[in-house]
């Protein structure tokens, strides 16, 4: 929606990419726009055409589980909100007949004369984000898909769960529409499977299976769900907690087994599966969900050759660890699942990062060609209230149920209403002109539109008000479609009465609405970056490339953070190379000021205008300096955990027990020697010991060290004791490689933990081998513990910045999925290990994304503030500071007046307009713009006025 509304984003849907010429900063991209046969500017998305279209079409959007028409829109929130005609099924386009839709469309939007159009776009950078492809039906057929209707893919199941899906959110068997009592999920379908050439792990399926299972349980608590898996890979932030919830609260069963076969069994399906011990079992289910993997997009090869970049062995985009979003062609970037299978937060992070990188490429051309709209000067509304009411038919969407002329006439009889009318589509372009005209003609200074939802259309009408020289807050919208005619479709009289009531309430409010100032706050175009590790350095460099100054604050004496302790990445890249390159670039850049041995002592201010005290230790002395900046990027990182409990017991001290990081350092360099035997223990201290969460990188770390040992000495014995190997994504290949090279991986269960003991110089480990089904004792030369990662200093910093942390002390983002690098306090961003444990590649992307987000206010030079914010009347305020403690956004501060009295004051740049302060103020000193006590009270009073209820 937001992208669709931006004047600087042009969305070319239904388009093909034909070619790319030129160089970074000056590309010409050729695209072909396929005709949609509907004029998108005229289409009002009323849906009448779909209702009249006589042809049926399998609904691709609903995974073929529902039927739609050739003329349709995929889903109501689609952008652009315009219907289109699928030429494959349209009677007119195929046979030259029909055309029923043409006279049906009241806004005359249907245009069968449209032809394909080729366009050459002048662009500076290209971002490839074609998403992912589907696992072949051949692979799915191994599990009975296509043969038995009740074997569905997880994507189909997702549609079944959706309220706008084929059964309106009810889970039903496809075969006979019964509610399934038993559902099985089969993991790793089309992933970790060399049979279909997908050696990698799709990373997201374990988590989405858990989510789908929990949602299904919410729909029907009686349903029994079992998930059959190889390793539950819930390595993301807070994912393990969700998995525990699924098991403990929802009663979802997890069975570690491979499913061999799905066969019909009476009216059910019978699963044959083999567990770790090698025994076979049978289990009947009503429905089987295949957790399908993510494949490279179908036309990846074509896209790569058209745009001139390379693919990896699985046809995903080829990239490198240290430049994760760069394709092999300069100026062409990648974001999302085409980079490798990934979930929503990571895709959103990547897209922000890619946008930031593109902005760096286009730096010299910044601001050229951007569209900024100008408006006529705002008129003073004057004392007299003159309300105009516009009631919309929305085709037949409202008019077919509600007596629109009656409602309009009713509104006309209300106090201060000087004009009323009805329109067919009040959102159409000509209706906007009409509204402007009527504002002028009747000197209107309040506008009420009774139509659809303000959530979707308020900005449009407010724009019209601005065009007419009225403050946009002199507008009130009444929702008589989404929340009236659509939900009371069979009760026209009641719906009309409700519309009248709602209009009456809105007019009552409108009589009290006031113009609110459009506020902007200037921004100091500098950034404070906390932490000089890979995340902080990447973020500072990125900002510098975009032309912004930053202060890089590092606690220790040198830049590098955890990079200093790493030898190589799993992919074999040398950490020292990255460190050298990054720190040299950071030190050289004129826009970056590096402050080592420094810490943040104090922060004041708000987005755009922070003032921080930074304390720098200089030998025994410390000096402090004040820095002004507009944004803060937190990249304070994490460190290897020192466990207080290992495998449920006190840790054993021995020289032969080391951490994976220490082992890596031992194995580094040309002269390193491999130990003759090593046992690695995963999740030592994590996932239930001191740390509740999974640290995401330890399995990769173990595989990396195991491979290094095997490379140094193939005869060396390496045993890895694990709970679940979480070598997600392409790291799965290296896990397989390790097994091929003779590394032995043995799973252990939490109710039968391995036991570590030390005697003299020897270290011993006892564990149960589920394949041998026997207890095993080993005395290895070295015992390596994967101890996990903890965040560095988040407790202190979170208090300083008033930013919440999660249960594991990692910073809590503003929105996990949609705003993954922004923190709840405006102008503060997070990246790297301070956000959650993650490998270098993901840290780099996240740092780029944080820099991209932080650059937004810096580029603009100001922060726009919604006018609907709180306002404290300091004459009435008694300075109790209740509001400051209640405000969830730190948007109210106490200030001292000239007469020394303490009074509350809103920081408009931080206020989100929630109104908690206003409802709690004991002296009613706080008013909420657009939602004042007077306005809401008048709505309540109007609700009570029933004089015209029964006419």
């Amino acid at each position, binding site marked *: 929606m937001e992208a669709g509304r931006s004047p600087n984003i042009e969305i070319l849907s239904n388009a093909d990419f034909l070619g790319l010429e030129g160089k970074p900063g000056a590309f010409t991209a050729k695209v072909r726009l396929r005709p949609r046969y509907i004029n998108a500017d005229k289409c009002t998305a009323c849906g009448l055409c779909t209702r009249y279209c006589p042809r049926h079409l399998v609904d691709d959007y609903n995974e073929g589980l529902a039927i739609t028409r050739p003329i349709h829109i995929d889903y109501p929130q689609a952008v652009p909100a315009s219907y289109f005609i699928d030429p494959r099924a349209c009677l007119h386009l195929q046979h030259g007949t029909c055309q029923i839709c043409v006279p049906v469309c009241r806004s005359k939007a249907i245009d069968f004369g449209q032809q394909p159009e080729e366009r050459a776009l002048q662009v500076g950078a290209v971002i490839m984000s074609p998403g992912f492809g589907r696992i072949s039906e051949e692979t799915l057929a191994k599990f009975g898909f296509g043969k038995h209707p009740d074997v569905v893919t997880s994507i189909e199941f997702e549609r079944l769960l959706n309220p706008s899906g084929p059964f309106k959110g009810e889970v039903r068997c496809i075969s006979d529409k019964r509610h399934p009592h038993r559902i099985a999920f089969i993991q790793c379908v089309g992933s970790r499977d060399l049979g279909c050439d997908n050696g990698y792990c799709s990373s997201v399926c374990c988590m989405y299976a858990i989510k789908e299972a929990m949602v299904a349980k919410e729909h029907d608590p009686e349903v029994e769900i079992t998930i059959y898996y190889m390793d539950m890979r819930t390595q993301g932030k807070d994912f393990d907690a969700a998995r525990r919830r699924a098991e403990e609260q929802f009663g979802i069963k997890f069975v570690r087994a491979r499913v061999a076969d799905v066969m019909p069994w009476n009216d059910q399906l019978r699963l044959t599966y083999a567990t770790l011990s090698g025994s076979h079992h049978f289990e009947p289910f009503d429905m089987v969900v295949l957790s399908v993997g993510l494949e490279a997009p179908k036309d990846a090869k074509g896209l790569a050759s058209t745009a001139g970049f390379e693919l990896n062995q699985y046809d995903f985009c080829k990239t490198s660890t240290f430049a994760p979003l760069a394709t092999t062609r300069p100026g062409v970037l990648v974001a999302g699942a085409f980079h490798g299978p990934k979930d929503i937060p990571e895709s959103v992070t990547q897209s922000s990062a890619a946008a930031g990188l593109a902005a760096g490429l286009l730096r010299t051309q910044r601001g050229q060609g951007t569209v900024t709209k100008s408006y006529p000067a705002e008129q003073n509304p004057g004392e007299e209230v003159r309300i105009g009411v516009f009631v919309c038919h929305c085709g037949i969407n409202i008019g077919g149920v509600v007596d629109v002329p009656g409602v309009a006439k009713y509104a006309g009889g209300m106090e201060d209403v000087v004009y009323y009318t009805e329109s067919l589509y009040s959102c159409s372009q000509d209706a906007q002109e009409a509204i402007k005209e009527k504002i002028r003609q009747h000197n209107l200074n309040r506008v009420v539109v009774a139509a659809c939802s303000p959530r979707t259309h308020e900005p449009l009408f407010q724009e019209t008000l601005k065009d007419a020289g009225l403050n946009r807050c002199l507008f009130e919208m009444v929702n008589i479609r989404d*929340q009236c005619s659509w*939900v009371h479709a069979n009760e026209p009289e009641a719906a009309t009465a409700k519309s009248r009531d*709602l209009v009456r309430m809105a007019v009552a409010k409108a009589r009290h609405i006031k113009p609110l100032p459009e506020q902007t706050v200037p921004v100091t175009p500098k950034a404070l970056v906390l932490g000089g590790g890979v995340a902080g350095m990447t973020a500072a460099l990125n900002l510098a490339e975009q032309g912004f100054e930053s202060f890089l604050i590092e606690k220790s004496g040198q830049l590098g953070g955890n990079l200093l302790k790493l030898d190589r990445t799993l992919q074999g890249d040398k950490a020292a190379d990255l460190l050298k390159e990054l720190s040299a670039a950071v030190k050289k850049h004129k826009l970056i000021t590096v402050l080592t041995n420094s810490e943040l002592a104090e922060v004041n201010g708000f987005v755009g205008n922070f003032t921080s005290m930074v304390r720098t230790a200089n030998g025994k002395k410390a000096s402090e300096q004040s820095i002004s900046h507009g944004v803060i990027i937190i990249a304070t990182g994490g460190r290897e955990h020192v466990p207080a409990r290992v495998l449920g017991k006190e840790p054993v001290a021995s020289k032969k027990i080391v951490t994976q990081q220490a082992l890596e350092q031992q194995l580094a360099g040309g002269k390193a020697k491999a130990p003759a035997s090593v046992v690695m223990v995963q999740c030592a201290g994590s996932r239930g010991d001191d740390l509740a969460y999974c640290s995401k990188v330890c399995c990769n770390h173990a595989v990396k060290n195991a491979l290094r040992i095997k490379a140094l000495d193939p005869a060396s014995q390496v045993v890895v004791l694990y709970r679940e190997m979480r070598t997600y994504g392409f790291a799965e290949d290296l896990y397989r490689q390790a097994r091929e090279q003779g590394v032995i991986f043995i799973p252990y269960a939490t109710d039968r933990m391995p036991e570590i003991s030390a005697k003299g110089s020897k270290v011993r480990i006892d564990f149960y081998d589920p394949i041998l089904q026997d207890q095993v004792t080993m005395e290895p030369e070295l015992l390596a513990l994967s101890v996990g990662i903890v965040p560095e200093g988040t407790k202190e910093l979170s208090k300083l910045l008033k930013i919440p942390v999660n249960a594991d002390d990692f910073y809590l983002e503003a929105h996990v999925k949609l705003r993954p690098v922004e923190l709840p306090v405006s102008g503060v961003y997070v990246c790297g290990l301070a956000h959650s444990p993650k490998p270098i590649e993901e840290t780099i992307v996240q740092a780029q994304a944080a820099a991209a987000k932080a650059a937004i206010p810096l580029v603009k030079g100001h922060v726009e503030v919604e006018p609907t914010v709180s306002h404290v009347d300091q004459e009435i305020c008694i300075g109790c500071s209740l509001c400051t403690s209640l405000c969830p956004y730190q948007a109210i501060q106490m200030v001292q007046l000239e007469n020394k009295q303490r009074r509350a004051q809103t920081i408009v740049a931080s206020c989100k307009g929630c*109104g908690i302060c206003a409802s709690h103020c004991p002296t009613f000193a706080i008013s909420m713009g657009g939602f004042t006590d007077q306005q*809401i009270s008048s709505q309540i009073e109007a*609700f009570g006025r029933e004089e015209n209820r029964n006419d």
Partner: protein
Amino acid sequence: MTEQTTNPRILGFLCNWCCYAAADAAGVSRYQYPPNLRTIRVMCTGRIDPAFILRGFAQGAAGIFAGG
């Protein structure tokens, strides 16, 4: 009184970000529900002053619905 109980007038305060959005979504999915609710949109249920609720009852609401 009988009419009141069979056809109660309910006043709702809906949070713009969740419940109001959900009410829109119910419309998009064409769910049908009784037409007794009259709503006031707020930016957060935190905006609801207890006085609003009392005032609603005083104005004849049979029930107050706060959705957030």
